């Protein structure tokens, strides 16, 4: 029996939620994991301070894909304030597998959160209406 690959992780990696890209995103960010060469991109739309749509794309392991899938589910429809407050621990609790002693896989799990935060804090690509 596998400790890291429970049914939840496997289901999210097989059938991820919110997979894709948004043409009309208000912010996007792509993060790379230099250890493995994987990348995750987040596109989101903020309207009236609410995350009204969010998609993720890119290639990665089951942990990074499942984590991104759960993260997008968690922040969709939330206010920007709430999404900003969504922490590393919140995400790890959602994923529900012990990664604390595994720094390499921890990076896989948190790469989507890094992309989300870049979008929310405007350090990623911010699309203005003029574009």
């Amino acid at each position, binding site marked *: 029996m*596998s*400790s*890291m*690959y429970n049914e939840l992780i*496997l289901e999210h*990696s*097989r059938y991820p939620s919110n997979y894709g890209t948004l043409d009309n995103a208000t912010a996007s960010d792509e993060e790379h994991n230099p*250890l*493995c*060469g*994987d*990348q995750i991109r987040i596109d989101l739309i903020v309207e009236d301070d609410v995350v009204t749509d969010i998609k993720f794309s890119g*290639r*990665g*392991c*089951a*942990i990074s*894909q499942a984590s991104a899938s759960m993260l997008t589910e968690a922040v969709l429809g939330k206010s920007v304030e709430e999404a900003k407050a969504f922490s590393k621990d919140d995400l790890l609790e959602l994923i529900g597998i012990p990664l604390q002693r595994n720094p390499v*896989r921890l990076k*896989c799990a948190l790469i989507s959160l890094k992309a989300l935060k870049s979008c929310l804090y405007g350090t990623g690509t911010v699309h203005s209406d003029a574009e």
Partner: protein
Amino acid sequence: MTKATQAELDIAAVRRDFPILEQSINGQPLAFLDSAASSQRPRQVIEHQVDYYQRYHANVHRGVYTLSEQATQAYEDAREKVARFINAQMAQEVVFARNTTEAINLVAQAWGGANLQAGDRILLTVMEHHSNIVPWQLIAQRVGAQLDYLPIDGDGRLDLGVLDTLLTEQTKMVAVTHQSNVLGTINPIPLLAQRAQAVGALLLVDGAQSVPHMPVDVQALGADFVAFSGHKMCGPTGVGVLWGRYELLDAMPPFLGGGSMIEVVGLQQSSYAEVPNRFEAGTPAIAEAITLAAAVDYLESIGLERIYQHEHLLTSYALEALSEVSGLQVYGPPTMDNRGGAISFTLEGVHPHDIAALLDEEGIAIRAGHHCTQPLHRVLDQNATGRASFYLYNSTDEIDRLVAGLRRAQGMFRR
């Protein structure tokens, strides 16, 4: 070759030399299939290093007291031993560096800084490790030189058809791996040496994956520089070797400055020591260099030809077994012609990281990722691959476990 060196390896006996292999990981016997990243060490090597620290540690080339003389003697004996191991013409041609990476940086900075000019070209291959790419980028950017890359064919072998176009009078350095750490391809070094020489270019060989696994004679290769690491050949981390032809090393300016590499130090300038000391600034990795000599002894007691044959059998067995796994794609030569013991692969529907994590749950250690070859992985159109690599202590049983583990991983991820 004598009868003894032709005999197959006694794997059980070899494995008893490696204490680390006696353990279980996640309740299963450890199957260590990542020696291309770093090998394990036998008891004989570990004990040698302990013995040095317990009996004769002191700084080298400095003291006139007994311990320092003993340490200096052992350090220089290690240089002699390594020189004989690779058939260097003389011990002064062996420079101790930190690892292959530092050895290549040394050549790029010291030789390149003195000899490369704007418009010069450096020829690499797309299968190079980052350690044989980035040092050349650094010096090329500094002096305005250009990098060219030999491509590979569909079997992961160098495409020599374009050699004439890429290797020209402007080419001053050809830097190429002897054996790819990803594809396992063994490159035709003597041929490349001949062609480089014909246009007046030097040839540097990255021997990190070849020197530990086959007999390597630097003179027979025809190379000008060969770099390799101690930790991939049953030796310690922190020590590597740069071998260079004496005239070339002798004409090169220093790489790093500091103690040991000087002759007379003035306030504004200094004169430098003879080679190899000129390139060994500061207290060297004394314990590690001395222990590397023990690793050479160990490998020679088994025989490099025998190790090569053993890995040849393992790799051939593994390629056959892996070919029966559906959805598994191997990157690299499909036949054993000039092919060493590193096999990189992808498995449809399972990311390499997940494969490696699932195999670890069964005590099997493989590498997953780009293996420090991002340009090659771009050519392969993969972000990451899994890699199993073999050494003298691996067995066909471990390959059977790998194959069974891959099938289980595939089963788990099937939609």
